[in-house]
């Protein structure tokens, strides 16, 4: 499945001083995949576009803080 977030598993030592984070993630935004923008991509409505920060749905990839994700009850 295509995602805009990738995960990897860092090495965990038996002697790590802090509680190990077993999975780390990083952002891979749409600009890495699309190349030169093709014509006739789907657009947001003007008012949605002003809010999203882009007219183009394909480039929309919002980021939320862990606090906001807990509040919204969603995972990133």
């Amino acid at each position: 499945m295509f995602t805009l977030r990738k995960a990897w598993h860092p090495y965990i030592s038996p002697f790590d001083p802090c509680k190990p984070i077993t999975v780390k993630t990083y952002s891979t935004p749409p600009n890495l995949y699309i190349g030169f923008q093709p014509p006739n991509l789907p657009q947001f409505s003007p008012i949605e576009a002003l809010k999203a920060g882009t007219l183009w749905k394909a480039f929309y990839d919002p980021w939320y803080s862990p606090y906001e994700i807990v509040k919204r009850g969603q995972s990133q």
Partner: protein
Amino acid sequence: MWVYEKKLQYPVRVGTCNPKLAKFLIEQYGGADGELAAALRYLNQRYTIPDKVIGLLTDIGTEEFAHLEMIATMVYKLTKDATPEQMKAAGLGAHYANHDNALFYENAGGSPFTATYIQAKGDPIADLYEDIAAEEKARATYQWIINMSDDTDLNDSLRFLREREIIHSQRFREAVEILKDEQGKKRVF
């Protein structure tokens, strides 16, 4: 020449009094990958880049100043009513000693802005690759600031700014495609 519109590119609302966030946000004001560095880098590179992509650098460089103004508004709102005690508690004691509650072009660690943050190599591909890297670094900085903030109103504006970095990176990548394009060959989508 510029025309100034007396409003922000995107509304800035700050939900909670939290001067600590101002200390982090200052990174995007006067830091290496901040909005000031971005604006100055792009507008300066315009003169020696092939004319096909000058307009792009003008557009994005100009927009970066609009972003700088949004960050300034956030920092200002977060600190304007902070007492010296609150500034100290937010890690801004050294800032207060030098600047009172004034804004200053510095990074989150307090280092003043320097032109050594930006480059103009004169080689179009080298310059555009620097610009792409700068956009990705600014995007990441916004992620880390959003991660530390529970202010949904503020994060809404930061999310907008982060999305703009994604678009800027996309456009610089397209600029590279334009410049490396084989002359006279038709582009196929």
